[in-house]
């Protein structure tokens, strides 16, 4: 399977983006950087929601270049927005089916499997107004997966949640990470989250990629402070690995 290559350049208001990147076709790549560095803009460019000049090819298919701009509804991406953004007029089931019934792709990610993976069985008939923040984000994630994406984009899905809701949803994300067959880009500036969920990390600063993708698969423990090292060891123990 081929990689995801992109380059975007352009100005939006007072902010300018000039970012080139290559993503591996598997695993979760974290996109990290200070706020206002262009993380969300880059993600929106990949989804086709923001149009800047540049190129983007995913698995050998051109989504954007000098001549082509594939509109967002034709791009097989799943997007999880920072604030879930569930469709308020539809039930949980309606939200999940919205993309599922419109995608031209053969369903690889099954409805029941996704419901199981994210623990949504008891929520299907509720409306978004009657869900907690963590539940909403789980529905948003399932909804994105059920649109059968070839690339999953997540824009700080945990940042709007309180500590309790974060703790509740993280195990689901870790489970997703283990079973996910498609590549994902995960925006976060929380090093703990990145260590738990990402395989690689990409840094962006002032609209430009400054480092990465750096592999996190075998993290070198030098350079990490003691607390971080302990946390990683603990995470490894929990995951059943010998430190």
């Amino acid at each position: 399977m081929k990689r995801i290559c992109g380059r975007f350049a352009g100005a939006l208001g007072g902010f300018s983006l000039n970012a080139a990147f290559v993503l591996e076709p598997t695993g979760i790549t974290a996109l990290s950087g200070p706020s206002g560095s262009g993380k969300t803009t880059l993600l929106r460019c990949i989804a086709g929601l923001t149009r800047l000049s540049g190129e983007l090819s995913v698995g050998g298919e051109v989504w954007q270049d000098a001549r082509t701009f594939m509109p967002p509804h034709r791009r097989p991406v799943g997007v999880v927005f920072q604030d879930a953004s569930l469709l308020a007029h539809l039930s949980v089931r309606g939200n999940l089916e919205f993309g599922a019934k419109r995608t031209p792709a053969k369903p690889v990610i099954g409805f029941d499997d996704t419901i199981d993976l994210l623990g949504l069985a008891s929520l299907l008939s509720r409306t978004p107004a009657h869900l907690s923040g963590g539940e909403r984000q789980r529905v948003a994630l399932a909804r994105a997966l059920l649109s059968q994406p070839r690339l999953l984009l997540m824009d700080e899905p945990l940042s709007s949640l309180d500590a309790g809701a974060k703790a509740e949803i993280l195990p689901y994300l870790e489970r997703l990470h283990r079973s996910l067959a498609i590549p994902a880009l995960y925006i976060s500036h929380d090093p703990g989250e990145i260590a738990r969920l990402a395989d690689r990390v990409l840094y962006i600063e002032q609209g430009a990629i400054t480092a990465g993708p750096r592999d996190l698969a075998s993290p070198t423990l030098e350079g990490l402070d003691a607390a971080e090292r302990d946390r990683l060891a603990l995470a490894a123990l929990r995951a059943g690995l010998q430190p």
Partner: protein
Amino acid sequence: MNEVVWTTLRLASLTTLLLLVLATPIAWWLAGRRAWWKEVIAAVTTLPIILPPSVLGFYLLIAIAPQSPLMGVLHPFGVRTLAFTFEGLVIGSMVYSLPFAVQPIRSAFEAMGPRPMEVAATLRAPPLDAFFSVALPLSRRGFLTAAILVFAHTIGEFGVVLMIGGGIPGKTEVISVRIYELVESLQYGDAHRLAAGVVVFSFLALLGLLLVARRTDEAVK
């Protein structure tokens, strides 16, 4: 008496239906990306609120009279004039109530924001599909408000219908015009009955509107 009520209700229903269809694309376009010159169009569509009905009626009458450029366009289709016809009244009422349709729908689209349409796009819905399956249902209260306002406003119009309709019984005579004529000819009993009916109807329409607004507020909370 029944005839005039029927004409009025037919006019109000038809105006409401056609105006919702016409106002939706205008409201959608106005709610889109901001540009100062869009407010020029917004001002034009709002103008009927502040123009005296006689001014509006005068220009409308000129526009639908036999020698007007508009009728010139319609002439090949066998239409010579729309002045003093029911069809002319529908057009006049649509112009007269345009702001009452555009404003609530535009506000509803603006309150929705761009996000739901982006969500729909990332879930593979093409723009038109997304409009009907996401934007319309999410803005339904704006449409309901617009429908009630336009219907009630059309029932209440007087100056414009008198000028371009002429108050021909069975064709273009509506309740408000009939009341005026009844009072002119000192038939106070009939005038009372019709006037009271309009008061009760208008009260119910406003009550409905306020209840819709209340439900919207509760939904937001």
